[in-house]
């Protein structure tokens, strides 16, 4: 009886659940059985070496690659068969690895497209400006002419201009200066307080450890470890075993 209740609680708790997901790209078989879950109102970190399959996992969740087998559940109902558009409309916001900036459009237009009703909430915008001042500075510019890092900021700004069910972020800190990374961490923390659920791919372990509540580590297309962040940070061997790094590496 109580077990049953806990079961339900479990299901309730997770915004997203992957169950032995397989993905093939062309003839390559990239993911073979990825299973992990993303608890509500927490930040889940997806770590792993290059080519482990993190991006592929994200794209599969967004429906940009079709899962060959397995289940992907959002709040309990299957989405692995849905079109990307449908998935997005269920409230998944995505920051892709390549940032997905519309270089021909101005920064403003980029952000405006990310709003459902073509209205930008001014308060939320001000908040974004405080996080990423460059956005304010280049508000009317063609986004193509932003620097690499500025693009990254824009991409993130675009994903948080409206509240969402689940935020998928692929390597946000890539190519960002430390000062900006600090802003990012602040931003994501504020989102957390604001009850947003986040799934983030991250290479910068410091950022990962600061932000993350929950983590999954993958290698060669399978999840090799899933736990809450705290216990993982506490456990030195595991870290060096799985990530081959010690906490000092990035201070």
């Amino acid at each position: 009886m109580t077990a049953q209740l806990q079961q339900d609680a479990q299901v309730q708790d997770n915004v997203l659940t992957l169950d032995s997901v397989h993905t093939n790209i062309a003839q390559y078989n990239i993911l073979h059985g990825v299973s992990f879950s993303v608890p509500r109102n927490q930040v889940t970190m997806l770590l792993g070496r290059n080519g482990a399959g993190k991006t592929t996992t994200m794209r599969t969740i967004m429906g940009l690659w079709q899962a060959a087998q397995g289940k992907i559940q959002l709040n309990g109902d299957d989405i692995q068969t849905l079109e990307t558009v449908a998935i997005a409309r269920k409230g998944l916001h995505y920051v892709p690895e390549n940032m997905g900036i519309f270089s021909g459009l101005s920064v403003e237009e980029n952000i405006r497209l990310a709003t459902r009703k073509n209205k930008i909430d001014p308060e939320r915008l001000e908040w974004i400006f405080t996080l990423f001042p460059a956005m304010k500075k280049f508000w009317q510019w063609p986004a193509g002419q932003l620097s690499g890092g500025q693009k990254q900021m824009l991409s993130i700004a675009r994903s948080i201009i409206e509240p969402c069910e689940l935020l998928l972020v692929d390597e946000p800190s890539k190519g960002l200066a430390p000062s900006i990374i600090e802003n990012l961490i602040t931003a994501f923390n504020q989102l957390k307080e604001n009850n947003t659920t986040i799934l983030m791919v991250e290479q910068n372990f410091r950022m990962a450890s600061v932000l993350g509540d929950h983590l999954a580590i993958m290698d060669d297309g399978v999840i090799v470890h899933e736990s809450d962040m705290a216990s993982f940070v506490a456990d030195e061997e595991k870290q060096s075993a799985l990530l081959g790094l010690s906490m000092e590496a990035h201070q």
Partner: protein
Amino acid sequence: MPSQDSSPVLKTQNLSIRFGGHIAVDQVSAEFEQGTLTAIVGPNGAGKTTYFNLISGQLPASEGDVYLEGRNISNWAIAKRAKHGVGRAFQLTQLFPNLTVAENLTLVVQARLGFGPKIWALASRLNSVKKEVESLLDTIELTSKSQELARALSHGAQRRLEVGMMLAMDPKVMMFDEPTAGMSVDEAPVLLELIAKIKSEGNRTILLVEHKLDVIRTLADRIIVLHNGKLLADGNPEKVMSLDVVRQAYLGELPESDEVA
């Protein structure tokens, strides 16, 4: 021509570029000696990539000059600068997507050895090229993937190929634009060691755009700080890092919005 330590291999003088109202690089003058590694740091949008673009010729300077071994190369074409030893690895990977990894490298090597215009030679018979390519593949640890199409590589692998293509140019000046961006903590070191090794050989002039401070500390002989296109500071790491102005601008100890205003 062997350059004496006194004369700089690369030199920029009041180098500037304007995009409409906005000055992306503003009066930057600097000299780079042979065998040194200079880290170029600065917040996003500071003008680092643009500075590289000006040196390698992708963008025409609105003002100022670039000197290579004393010669003014300001109005040389991109290709000519490349041939004379200005090497560049791009921040956003630039490969030949539908050619194999090996072919990507072959193209660079044969360009340097001046085989490009040879219409009648047989590519498959150019052993000198082949050998070099093999050793390069080995250096960037892609031997196993040499026959795969560049586009099928993972991001990390593509970054390595990107760097490999610059090495293949065997340039006097090497410009790395955030080479480790998006690499995992166990992949990055491979590349960084490679850079360290190249530096130790001592016959190159290396410019490195990098955000990771530990990396900079371990590798750089000297740091140049760019901010809003201006050269903010220039000197050995400890000194530069200790400057308040730098700590503010780069580490953003004051909220960034204050200085962009």
